């Protein structure tokens, strides 16, 4: 590239005639062309000017939100970064409180539960309106829920609504009539929801984005492009002012929101920065106020950063674990799986690799989950591990086939840790059990597919709670769950969970869950939990208020504000 262009004389491309004379006479012939060329240059200059002059006022609050949202449709989003945005734009019947992440009234001001626990009656607030002025009624709620369950919408989280009567059948196409689904409007303010069986955490489900109320008036008109409509009618605390790909999402206060008087910041920018170092740079130079996502911590600097007062670590409900493919020999033998679990030294991993104060996980449901205390789980006991392995027919690891440990890794941030973890685990199994495993790094994009198709032996996994209840974790491994991805099916486990979810008494429920979890991590061990996640976010508590640390990492945008005004650069 340095020399290539010099050698190509432009003379090759045009038949040029170089005249000997000065060419003064040629001037008049080229006047129209001069004019044209002049115009083109002027046009170029205008573009330049226009680009330079584009200058919008600074936001009140700038938050770095990790990834670029693929969509802002609350019914279909699955990523946490997107959910933070949809929660700011669209609200549902209930919302999670920012201080303790418990369900609190949203669009509905109160609700009643029938004695059997299967019928909920919600009372919407009076005078609810969309940001564009139309009244918001129960018809909108019914429309939104039916849309989420409609197979044409292709919502991944629709399964959360299967607790509704006939919802699953409607989603699978067995029932065609949406009116058969257990939600109906009694009048413009009262809504009745009928469940298949009582569900203790149904209020938490009502806080999820999949239940958020979406504007029927726009969706009917625009179809798939409804999010491009401006102004976009929203039901939440903020309106969508601008959504520029890989640039920012700009929100401004929705004055028609029922709680608008408590919205703290007027204009909020959410930046999709994926690199932890860039996020840190922006934060340090004052161009960003808050950085929140556990993947945005530069792992190498974690020890230094953790000492600073503006870096906040908190526990949250997420577990890193590894799965077995129990359909492959010899992993179909529970003794082999238990041996792997007993040989995993969690303390070493936490000490050596993760520096954020994570906790070792011997059971699957993270500590701190509401109304629940987990059972013990398998400890670190290499001697017993070897014994079990010998019992299973592989004394000292002899004769054990070479397995592959699949994981995905990234160059930096939280995902980079996976590669290091894989290497540690490989070493542990080698030293403790005498088993050789191969590491197989898979691209993130196809990783999920590989898991679903059970094309692995052992693979790294993680799960983050959708709501604050043990069921969100234990539910993964029921026989029919799409998130199971181990091939493990156990009828007794399914029964236990079903009984627990029909149970209204909190203690009984916890007891049933404990039995199920024991079965999962101690007896059968189709998975081995490794550690519970610690989250990190950073912001200066002297300048920002309105963020409270909680287990679900739930920080409603409308509660946050800057105390001092930010200087523009």
């Amino acid at each position: 590239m340095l020399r290539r262009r010099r050698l190509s004389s432009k003379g090759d491309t045009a038949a040029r005639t170089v005249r000997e004379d000065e060419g003064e006479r040629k001037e008049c012939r080229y006047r129209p062309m001069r004019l044209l060329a002049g115009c083109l240059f002027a046009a170029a200059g205008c573009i330049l000017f226009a680009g330079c002059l584009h200058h919008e006022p600074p936001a009140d609050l700038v938050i770095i939100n990790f990834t670029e949202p693929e969509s802002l449709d609350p019914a279909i989003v699955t990523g946490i970064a997107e959910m933070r945005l949809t929660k700011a734009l669209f609200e549902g019947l209930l919302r999670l409180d920012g201080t303790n992440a418990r369900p609190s009234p949203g669009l509905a001001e109160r609700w009643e539960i029938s004695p059997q626990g299967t019928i909920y009656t919600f009372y919407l607030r009076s005078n609810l309106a969309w940001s564009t002025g139309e009244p918001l009624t129960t018809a909108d709620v019914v429309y939104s829920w039916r849309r989420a369950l409609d197979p044409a919408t292709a919502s991944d989280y629709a399964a959360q609504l299967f607790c509704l009567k006939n919802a699953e059948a409607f989603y699978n196409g067995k029932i065609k009539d949406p009116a058969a689904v257990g939600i109906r409007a009694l009048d413009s303010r009262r809504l009745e929801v009928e469940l298949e069986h009582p569900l203790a955490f149904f209020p938490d489900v009502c806080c999820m984005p999949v239940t958020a109320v979406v504007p029927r008036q726009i969706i009917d008109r625009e179809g798939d492009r409804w999010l491009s409509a401006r102004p976009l009618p929203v039901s939440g605390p903020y309106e969508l002012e601008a959504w520029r790909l890989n640039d920012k999402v700009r929100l401004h206060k929705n004055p028609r929101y029922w709680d608008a008087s408590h919205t703290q910041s007027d204009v909020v920018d959410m930046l999709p920065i994926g690199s932890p170092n860039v996020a840190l740079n922006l934060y340090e130079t004052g161009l960003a106020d808050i950085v929140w996502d556990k993947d945005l911590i530069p792992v190498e600097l974690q020890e230094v950063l953790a000492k600073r007062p503006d870096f906040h670590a908190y526990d949250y409900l997420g577990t890193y674990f590894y799965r077995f493919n129990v359909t492959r020999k010899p992993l179909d033998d529970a003794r082999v799986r238990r041996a792997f679990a007993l040989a995993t030294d969690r303390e070493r991993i936490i000490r050596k690799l993760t520096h954020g104060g994570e906790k070792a996980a011997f059971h699957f449901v993270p500590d701190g989950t509401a109304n629940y205390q987990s059972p013990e789980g398998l400890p670190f006991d290499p001697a017993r591990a070897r014994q079990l392995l010998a019992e299973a027919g592989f004394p000292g690891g002899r004769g054990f086939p070479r397995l592959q440990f699949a994981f995905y890794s990234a160059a930096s941030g939280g995902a980079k840790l996976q590669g290091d973890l894989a290497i540690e685990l490989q070493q542990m199994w080698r030293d403790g059990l005498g088993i050789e495993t191969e590491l197989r790094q898979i691209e993130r994009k196809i990783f999920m597919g590989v898991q679903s198709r059970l094309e692995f032996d052992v693979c790294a996994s993680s799960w983050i709670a959708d709501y604050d209840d043990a069921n969100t974790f234990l539910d993964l491994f029921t026989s029919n769950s799409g998130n199971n991805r181990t091939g493990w099916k156990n009828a007794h486990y399914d029964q236990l969970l079903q009984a627990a979810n029909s149970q209204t008494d909190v203690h009984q429920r916890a007891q049933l869950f404990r039995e199920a979890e024991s079965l999962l991590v101690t007896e059968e061990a189709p998975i081995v939990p490794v550690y519970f996640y610690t989250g990190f976010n950073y912001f200066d508590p002297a300048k920002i208020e309105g963020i409270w640390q909680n287990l679900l990492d739930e920080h409603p945008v409308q509660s946050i504000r800057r105390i001092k005004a930010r200087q523009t650069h």
Partner: protein
Amino acid sequence: MYFLKRLLLVPPLLLLISFLAFVLVHLAPGGPFDRDRGPASPEIERAIRAKYHLDEPVLKQYARYLGLVWEKDPHGHWRHAPASFDISLKYRNHSVTAIIAQALPVSATLGFLAFGFALGVGLPVGYFTSVRRGRWEDYAGSLFALLVICVPALVVAPLLLMIFAIHWRLFPVALWGSPWHAVLPTTALGLYFSGRVARLLQEGMLAVMPSEFITAARAKGLGENAVLLKHAFRLAVLPVVSYSGPMLADLLTGSFIIESIFQIPGLGMQLINSSLNSDYTVTVALALLYALLLILLNLLVDFAYVLLDRRVAYQ
């Protein structure tokens, strides 16, 4: 006319490029819908593929891409299927034209600023090194030009960032939006080209200065500056003008690095992200756009050449 002929070549060329690029991009497995969390159930996946017509044969998809497909709707009437080139497969709520409309001014501004930087720094340096031969301006200028063409943008950009934005905090470290944001990216991008321009101008001036008509102009009694500026410079700048075409092309591609390191939301970032995400429509659209831009810019450069060199005519 010559230029008309060249303009006529453009549409069939673009069509060919679009077809090739479309087919190439479609060969990639791992479509745009592999999810991160939770599997899409097979029914959902099938529904999505059907909705975006990814299950049709490639040629039909291409025809649909161009808006050339008519099909029966559920009521049995023939309807024109809207051209699907406008739908981004990964970002389903943005149309391709909206994405380009948002990113193009940013990249165009960056490109033109860097172009201006290259000329604005390179031309004076080249001029003065040739005019003041043998003196300190010559040595300093030549050394500068030599140094900057040795260091590619992908080394300059991180270095500039490290020194000026992070260590000394003089400029914003990333993003786009105010003139301050534009300083470091423009410098990083334009520095290399300013060196090339300086060297080209220097060589051009040194080649032209001994020629006869300059001596004649001097003999006529014109002032030295007038001679040099009006006559010598006009001819010496011709190699720079003809280099402008390839320079703009390299500016365009060089901007990928700059946009990536400074997180500037321009076309380069979009192209890279879309090709990594197998977002067929955006990738093809951007490839086309770049091709079109370059062809047009080359034409523009040829116009400029004609303006400046009175000795040249096209047949």
